[in-house]
């Protein structure tokens, strides 16, 4: 049985009270000229809450904890995004949050049944191929954006969910090994290995070095999950081999990294606070200025710094709302991931999907937070569900659907299987 633990009403009340508390802070401590500004924000946030709570009842599933956590995080991010510099209403972010919720439900439905995914997996490879071609054709070698005039799209963000998806496919084929030159190989694994290489080279080419660790993380987790199957245990040789390969990859990356990346690895940002490390210096100063409880919504100054609402958003939240608030958001995103551990997926396909989606979220959180705070080189990636940015938000919505699917699956009931097929299904 899935562990709901909390009642629907209880989780809903927690979500609602979280938003109401933050909105009260906006009204009482916020920096606004017109009372209508926080009113509009409140109407939008609470309106979305109520609509989503109602809509959820029409979606057949085993648990609602994940959904309510998701809308809680998204609406908190809408409140934060609406207050940087001055209280207003981040309509674009709000719109993309709704889109992310919709995409979450769509992808949830899409990946519920692993057999359908298996059947259409070539479509997902195709989508990845189209996205790769679009990067090659439209972004240029030092850019990661396609500018359509009215909107900019980051194709690499959309590759992430499909990359996670294809790693979870063909699990059944892992048992079908082919002998080539005396070596046993699985075709699908080599295809995925090649795909990873292509994407890594592509990211390198367009200098999207922020997304690169995310793809490597997904590939690493996917590889481990695939090697694991169907055995439950990794051999010591395999663990040593994976660690050695990882070390070689990291060392090679460090050696081959472009000059500006090498510089970021060694730069003392405080030696010249107005130089290369200006953004990180400003971000750390903002965290310090905010302290535990913040300066108040709209009273920050970090919003003037480029990427304040994306790459250094952890600091922007800390400055205006306090580090307690930013830690709370991080905790809630982790909670979202932890639901996948509490409600353990019942199929290997969904387990692999959950691991892949979790790795995207965790790696991106680490890159965003630790990079902006100068614990690791600053690569400039978004904080899942919180940072401003449509491509990232939509990709996160799709990935959230994968996590949710693991917790509310649809089981295929076969018509009295033969002994052979029954054995296969049980393992999957």
């Amino acid at each position, binding site marked *: 049985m899935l562990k709901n633990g909390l009642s629907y009403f209880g989780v809903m009340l927690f979500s609602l009270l979280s938003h109401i508390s933050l909105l009260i802070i906006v009204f009482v401590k916020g920096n606004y000229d017109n009372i209508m500004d926080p009113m509009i924000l409140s109407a939008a946030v609470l309106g979305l809450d109520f609509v989503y709570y109602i809509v959820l009842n029409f979606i057949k599933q085993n648990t609602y904890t994940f959904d309510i956590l998701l809308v809680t995080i998204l609406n908190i991010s809408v409140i934060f995004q609406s207050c940087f510099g001055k209280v207003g209403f981040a309509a674009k972010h709000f719109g993309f949050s709704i889109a992310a919720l919709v995409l979450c439900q769509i992808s949830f439905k899409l990946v519920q049944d692993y057999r359908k995914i298996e059947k259409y997996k070539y479509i997902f490879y195709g989508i990845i191929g189209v996205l790769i071609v679009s990067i090659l054709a439209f972004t240029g070698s030092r850019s990661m954006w396609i500018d359509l005039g009215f909107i900019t799209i980051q194709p690499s963000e959309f590759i992430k969910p499909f990359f996670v998806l294809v790693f979870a496919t063909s699990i059944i084929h892992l048992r079908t090994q082919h002998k080539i030159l005396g070596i046993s190989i699985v075709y699908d694994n080599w295809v995925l290995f090649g795909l990873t290489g292509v994407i890594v080279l592509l990211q390198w080419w367009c200098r999207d070095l922020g997304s690169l660790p995310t793809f490597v993380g997904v590939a690493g987790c996917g590889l481990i*999950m695939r090697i694991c199957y169907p055995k439950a245990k990794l051999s010591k040789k395999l663990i040593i081999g994976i660690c050695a390969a990882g070390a070689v990859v990291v060392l090679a990356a460090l050696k081959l990294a472009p000059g500006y990346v090498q510089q970021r690895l060694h730069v003392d940002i*405080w030696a010249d606070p107005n130089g290369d490390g200006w953004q990180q210096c400003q971000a*750390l100063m903002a965290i310090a*200025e905010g*302290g535990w409880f913040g300066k108040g919504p709209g009273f920050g100054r970090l919003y003037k710094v480029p990427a304040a609402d994306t790459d250094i958003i952890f600091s922007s939240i800390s400055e205006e709302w306090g*580090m307690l608030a930013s830690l709370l958001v991080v905790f809630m995103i982790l909670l979202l*991931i932890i639901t996948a551990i509490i409600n353990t997926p019942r199929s290997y396909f969904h*387990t692999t999907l959950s691991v892949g989606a979790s*790795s995207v979220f965790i790696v991106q959180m680490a890159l965003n937070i630790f990079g902006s705070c100068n*614990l690791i080189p600053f690569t400039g990636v978004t904080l899942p569900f919180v940072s401003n940015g449509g491509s990232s938000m939509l990709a996160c919505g799709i990935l959230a659907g994968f996590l949710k699917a693991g917790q509310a699956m649809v089981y295929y009931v076969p018509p009295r299987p033969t002994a052979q097929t029954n054995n296969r299904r049980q393992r999957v």
Partner: protein
Amino acid sequence: MKSLKRGSNLITLMIFVFLIGMGILIWKVLTEASFYISHSSEGNLGKIYDCNGEVLFDDDAKSGDYPDGHFKDIGNLIGDTSGQMTNTLVNKNLEKLSNYTFTAGIDDKNGKAAVYSTLNHAANEQVYSAFGDKDGCAIAYNYKTGEVLICTSRPNIDPISGYDDIENLPSGSLLCKAFSKTVPGSTQKVATLIAANEIMGNDTLMNKSFSCEGVYKNNTGMDIICHNEYGHGTQNIREAFANSCNPFFAQLVEDADWSISDIKNKYNALGIAVNDDEESTFEINGIICETASTDLDNKNEFDTQWGCIGQGTTLVSPCQMMMWESAIANGTGKATMPYFIDHVTNVNGRITETADTSYSEQMFSEQTAADVRDIMLENGRNNYSSIGYEVGVKSGTAQVKNGEEENSLLTGFVDSEDFPIAFAILIENRQSYDVSTDHIASVILNSLS
């Protein structure tokens, strides 16, 4: 089922590693937040006090809170938060002054962070006034403890009164000259005397005598001119030091009892960068002080001799001159390291840092310290009794701006267990009718006694 559990374990592992990172981040932010704030334009800074509890820096002060020009004697030493002056006590110690806690944030107006300096504001004001309309600087400290008591520089500014028209400020208003290199003139003869005494030994040095006829034609045929056009006649080192005789010191440099590399090594020991040596700096509570430099190529050549006399390319900061005096006066051959900050209190009023007396590396032997001390005291007794204290001194006249101007310098120490003061004074472009360095020395010592 175990295979499925593998996924949960992998997610748990990733979360665990991430949480370790978050833990490090929180620890880093909590321990370094004051440092970050010290770089921020926001935040509330504590005060700096002088040794008598008088305020030297008040970030919250507005024009009118203090008398106009009240901080003009130490304005460019103490500094402010405007960013116009960087080598100042405030700018270099923002973290110590930060009235900030992560819990209270930047709005904590009740913080007790403060820097208690060793400076004596009243004495600084007197010395600053004694300069009259002349530019220059004076620095004095306790050569037993290292407490800097006076450090004033002209021209100067009063940060509280404001100094908006920066482009039209007199040159040098925004930096304390005590830490900048200048041509030392004959005060450099102290360094040359130390080097000669170390290499030749006191007996040999004392037995040497050279003649001065007003001009000395050196081994390469160049003239070394003495300030006394009639010459000093035949002198020993004591007489030549007191007379500040250039021909004597030129002949001493040419002497066969030492080599150019000997002089270079001893100069290096004194902290003088010679020829291609990398010029370094040292810090006094964060304030950067330039170290001395000169060129020594061939001891028979004019430039080398001129450099050992304290002209040409030789440059020394008044602060470093003062430190050499301390190494002579304290009898160890090690300079007492100066400091401006006696103690620091944090935002809660708890003392977090107290000054300790420290010394430089051994620059010369204790015997040389005693020998040179004796010569300088004799000079003080015979020629500078007007100062009014038992002092060992050396004066200097430095040619600057291609000889168009002459700076007057005086460096020395008081020979007293109870009043152990070493000092260095610079008066720029001094004319004969202007205030003298010995008068400034007298004001320094009177104001501190």
